[in-house]
């Protein structure tokens, strides 16, 4: 039995870098998805930017480049105010979903240790979504109106004597409606991050003498931050693109950028709609970029 080994003076540089063969099949598998997204997402988005500079005739648009539509937008008080309204509502809803959702996330993520119970609670939060979005939006009117459910209950309970008028067709109604619809998107990611906190850490902190509020500030909140950021991104994106809730609950009084796009498209004013679209996209990009700066998501997740 022999064992032989060799050292040839020139070593053969055999196989090239490992992944040559692998990369090709990866590209092939990836191609359909990438092509689809490029054709049906990137191209339309580029179109929006492009068309915002087109000339608008009464019912048509022509590719002659001009800044007319942009001027129309920025010189109109109504349009500008809708810009501020959008930002205002977005910020308020972001804060309310956070404030309303965080305690729930703490309960579900930290206090409920049983995994099945956790999942059931989260499922419970999701069930309302099985009713069509629009139908739920419709249901707000009989809730918030002058003779609506809330007023009836409050009056019967003797808390108020006069029905609260401000519940419907105002900013407040829009905020309430949006919070109710989007708060789950805050609760989910935050509860997820909180569930990943090792309970031993909290116990150790308690043993060292920290009280709850200190633990909350110094441990729980920082650890939940990636979830907060993810939730904030979800909520922001959805609120900024909103139009149905505001239309239904404010009776056209609250005009968001989304509403403008819808109405302008309805009257075939494509160029102006595109201008609004570009502005909306810019706002969203800034918001997302800003939020991503708060936490390096890749590392945390």
């Amino acid at each position, binding site marked *: *039995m*022999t*064992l*032989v*080994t*060799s*050292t*040839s003076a020139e*070593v*053969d*540089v*055999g*196989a090239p*870098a*490992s992944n040559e*063969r692998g990369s090709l099949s990866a590209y092939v598998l990836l191609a359909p998805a990438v092509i689809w997204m490029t054709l049906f997402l990137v191209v339309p988005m580029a179109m929006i930017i492009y068309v915002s500079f087109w000339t608008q005739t009464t019912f048509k648009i022509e590719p002659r480049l001009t800044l007319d539509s942009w001027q129309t937008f920025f010189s109109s008080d109504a349009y500008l105010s809708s810009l501020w309204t959008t930002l205002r509502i977005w910020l308020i809803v972001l804060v309310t979903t956070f404030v309303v959702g965080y305690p729930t996330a703490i309960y579900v993520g930290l206090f409920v240790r049983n995994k099945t119970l956790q999942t059931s609670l989260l499922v419970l939060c999701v069930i309302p979504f099985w009713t069509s979005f629009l139908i739920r939006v419709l249901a707000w009117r009989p809730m918030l109106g002058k003779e609506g459910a809330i007023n009836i209950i409050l009056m019967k309970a003797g808390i108020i004597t006069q029905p609260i008028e401000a519940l419907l067709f105002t900013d407040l109604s829009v905020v309430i409606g949006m919070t109710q619809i989007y708060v789950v998107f805050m609760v989910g990611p935050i509860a997820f991050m909180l569930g990943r906190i090792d309970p031993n850490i909290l116990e150790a902190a308690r043993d060292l003498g920290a009280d709850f509020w200190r633990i909350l500030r110094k441990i729980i909140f920082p650890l939940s931050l990636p979830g907060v950021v993810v939730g904030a991104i979800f909520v922001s994106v959805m609120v900024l693109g909103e139009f149905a809730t505001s239309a239904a609950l404010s009776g056209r009084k609250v005009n968001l950028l989304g509403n403008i796009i819808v109405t302008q498209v309805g009257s075939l004013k494509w160029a102006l709609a595109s201008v609004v679209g570009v502005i909306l996209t810019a706002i969203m990009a800034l918001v997302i970029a800003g939020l991503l700066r708060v936490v390096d998501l890749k590392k945390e997740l």
Partner: protein
Amino acid sequence: MIMAMATSEIVTMQDGSSIVVLDEALLRLEGITKLFAGRSALSDVRFSVTGNEYISLLGPSGSGKTTLLRAIAGFETPDSGRIFFEGADVTRKPAHRRGIGFVFQNFALFPHLSVFDNVAFGLRNRAEPFPEDVVLSRVKETIDLVGLKGLERRGVHQISGGQKQRVALARTLVTKPKLVLLDEPLGALDANLRQRMRTELRRIREALDIPFLHVTGSETEALSMGDRLIVLDAGRIGQYGKPDEVYASPATANVARFLNRYNVFAGTIENDGFTTKYGRFDYGTRTPASERAYAIRYDRLSVTPSGGAAPAKLAASYVASEYLGSAMVHFFETADGKVVEVEHHLSFGPPEAFEPGRSYDLSWNPQDGIAFG
């Protein structure tokens, strides 16, 4: 069937040079290098397997032994170098076309298939599948060979660790590979079972008469199972030879360390002695190597009261002892904290009792000392 070519037997060293290889080797590796994140897991590995033997691949964790095995199987592609199997260059050949069997440390059984279907999987799903009657008979034969009779219908979650190991083995063997690679196959088993499986594996290999290349981190396993032993040291081959040769004549200080049988001391070498900080000692064997060291086997040391005369000795204080069944290992510590182990085989007589903390002289015959350098 042994495909032997008569040539000189030369062991590859880290800085050695040697002689041309012949293509009758079943498996030949040339200059295999693999980098992971800038670190080299394998550096210029070269060896051949010619006969049907049980070959152990020993190395501590991080030595690259699993990487080497996976490169041979085709799960990793080396950054440079070539792999020849049955004379053909398979370096770029995908794993499923190499015809090399692989037994995984975690068994990697198909959880959605029964024991029988696991074993039959390879025969049924290869490029040219076998007819079902052939499958049935071969699978039955192999299941009997590994001792799984009666368990064919069970799911993989319904069998014990040792049985899972046999399924993994049977699954590979039924395809009649020309070479079987085993990646720490006994690592997940308890000590008792491991002992039994060692014998089983050797028996099975002998029945099939194909080479097994078995990776392990346990030197006892490597020494007891292999007809031949490859010691891997930080991505390079430290030594390749018969177990008793490696045991008696380690090629480098690291090989001596991995065997867990040698006390190794650093120092400088001269023609007439080796100087360590514990003294200057003669040596019986000088082995050329890049790292200079002095090695003396655990069982070649004697413990004597402090102050006596001896041709080679060093002072250390007694710490504790470990009872290993057929031997006792005594742990001593030098003044600067180096641990020195002395093994006393109980067939030579009952063990002595030593006083913890007291200083003793550990002496040996300098002819037993190996000097590297």
